[in-house]
């Protein structure tokens, strides 16, 4: 009995220890994921003397690989998501991606030596992690940026970026929700507004 009990205790201890260690390893990975994302953005998108088209292409590749666009789209559309048909969903996702790609590409074009310094990583909910970081700027106060990431197979996907306490996903949801209500709740009305936004962003 004693042997069996100590055996079970041993098993429990080992499995708990392993579970604990793997949770820790995953936590570390989430930070490493953001670190490597920041590095590849610096080395591919933020480089000087790149044509606008090439910069857009490079960022789009990075963005589609690292952001969970379907999940973000669902969140941003909220209750309107279920009302949308497949064509509208696909169109929304495409336009949303374009809007993000053009605004982010411009940010990287204006890149001015900022660096990302990683902070702590905390688990959030069942499968997510919040990675804290600070964007250091020359002569200006650093900006607090937190990344919400979700485990996806061997890697992670970004769900949200929280800048000085303001979540981009929540801001988009509020923004797009307002446009939807002014369009009488019609997805096609929102898609029209989004198309105009993409054209405007392409120009400037």
């Amino acid at each position, binding site marked *: 009995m004693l042997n069996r009990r100590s055996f079970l205790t041993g098993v429990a201890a080992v499995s708990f220890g392993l579970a604990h260690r793997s949770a820790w390893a995953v936590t570390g990975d989430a930070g490493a994921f953001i670190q490597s994302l920041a590095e590849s953005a610096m080395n591919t998108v933020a480089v000087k003397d790149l044509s606008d088209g090439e910069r857009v292409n490079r960022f789009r590749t990075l963005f589609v690989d690292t952001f969970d666009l379907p999940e973000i789209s669902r969140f941003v559309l909220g209750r309107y998501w279920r009302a949308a048909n497949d064509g509208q969903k696909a169109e929304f996702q495409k336009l949303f991606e374009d809007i993000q790609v053009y*605004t982010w590409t411009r940010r990287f074009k204006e890149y001015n030596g900022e660096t990302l310094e990683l902070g702590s990583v905390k688990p959030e909910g069942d499968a997510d992690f919040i990675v804290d970081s600070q964007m250091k700027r020359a002569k200006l106060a650093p900006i607090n940026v937190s990344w919400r990431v979700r485990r996806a197979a061997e890697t992670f996907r970004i769900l949200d970026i929280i800048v000085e*306490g*303001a979540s981009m996903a929540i801001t988009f949801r*509020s923004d797009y*929700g307002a*446009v939807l209500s002014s369009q009488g709740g019609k997805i096609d009305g929102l898609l029209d507004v989004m198309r105009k*936004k993409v054209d405007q962003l392409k120009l400037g």
Partner: protein
Amino acid sequence: MAEWEQVNDPLEPMNRTIFEFNQAVDKALLKPVAQGYRWAVPQFGRDRVRDFVRNLRAPVVFVNDVLQGEPDRAMQTLMRFAFNTGFGIGGLIDVAEPGGIPYHDEDFGQTFAVWGIGEGPYLVLPILGPSNARDGVGLATEWLSDPFNLYMDRIGQDWAIWTRAGVAGLEKRERLLDTLDEIERSSLDYYSALRSTYRQNRAAEVKNKLDADGQR
């Protein structure tokens, strides 16, 4: 996340009207002036203006530190005010920060929040921009209780109050040039995006404060 589901904007039609007015004034006057200021005055000069304006507000920050029950932070603010006013040429140079006493901001809106008062409905104030009932009352309280303003009013030098408000506003608008451009560019409805950003940002400022204490 549930609390952000509500837009908390019962006065939206009025707010949007004021927002349109603010946008017009901003495009025609405030933003170009802030851009001109950034262009004409080198970083060093703008830093001196920022330090001076901040130092002038130290008494208000001090009062709010005290009202929030933060003796350590109140002491920091007091020391900063003494050092910067004395050794920093009337506050033009922040000598306390490199000396190890960092700057922190505080206002009556945050104090009311710490006391448990909710934000109230979202408000867009003429010229001053995004706010809410609680923060609006906070701004008015600050305007009426600021020692510099009270003194200048008493000796009949009202121009000093308005000049100071103008310089502080210019400094703030210059600081926000990129942030606001960014929000406007990346949003479909600038009004809603700004409202959401303001509310989240204020909530985080209050929450950080509460987390730092670990108790409230």
